[in-house]
């Protein structure tokens, strides 16, 4: 017979580890979004410059 509170604790520990890994992926995704926006901004500067030229 397995103790129910032990099962809950083990599930919580493994769940937290997975949630942390997922949170890391979400943060990385947000960072990629920021880099993408900065690239757009950079492309805008370069396009404006080539338009002036």
């Amino acid at each position, binding site marked *: 017979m397995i103790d129910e509170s*032990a099962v809950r604790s*083990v599930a919580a520990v493994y769940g*937290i580890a997975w949630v*942390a890994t997922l949170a890391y992926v979400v943060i*990385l995704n947000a960072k990629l979004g920021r*880099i993408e926006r900065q690239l757009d901004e950079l492309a805008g500067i370069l396009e404006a410059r080539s338009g002036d030229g």
Partner: protein
Amino acid sequence: MRDRTTAARLDRATCAALVTAVLMPVALGLIFFYVPNDADQGFSQRIFYFHVPIAMTTYALFAWGALNAARYLWTGDLSLDLRSYVPMHLGVIFGTLTLVTGSFWAKVSWGTWWYWGSTELNTFLIIFLFYCAYFMLRFSVEPGARRSRYSAVYALLGVGLIPLSVLAVRIAQDALHPIVFRSNGVNMDGSMFLTFCVALAAMLSLAVSMYLVEMRGKRVDERLAQLRRLAQEAA
């Protein structure tokens, strides 16, 4: 030349992620379907196979960060500053997980979330808080060589706490926190040790994947900032 280097970096990150993708399900399979219940702690002992590898990975990350800090102080190569900072950052993430998973284990085994009488717990907490303060120091100094130097010295000071922590636990002969790795061998049976080794390998490869991905992100960030400066100067 540059393309080849970037491709090699991508390959390393992909390889590490693939190794993790193989090892992690194997580790979980062993933990939940292979290894027997512990005679003393029962089902809750399965927390050990995640908690201890996470703690060991934390130590490995802090040690790797400190080693790169030492290399930075020795050579003055600024790229080593980043290679020191990223493992510290990941070490704090893994350290947080160690404390959270350990607290769950403590609650189910000892009936309390934290036990202040345990040398192992307290020394780990001191190391963790020490490296949390690393970020306060780092971000309170202007970016540049001075910040890198201060951060490197701080990172090096902290790594000395790791062997001290291990030694303190042995000297204190802490009766509550279990000591599995003793000087005369490992205090668990073969199947448990195999499961532990696979879980440790999975956790280390996860940390390596995260390290490589984060390093790439930081490098891309730096290159982008450089390009923006150049574009603004040219405009």
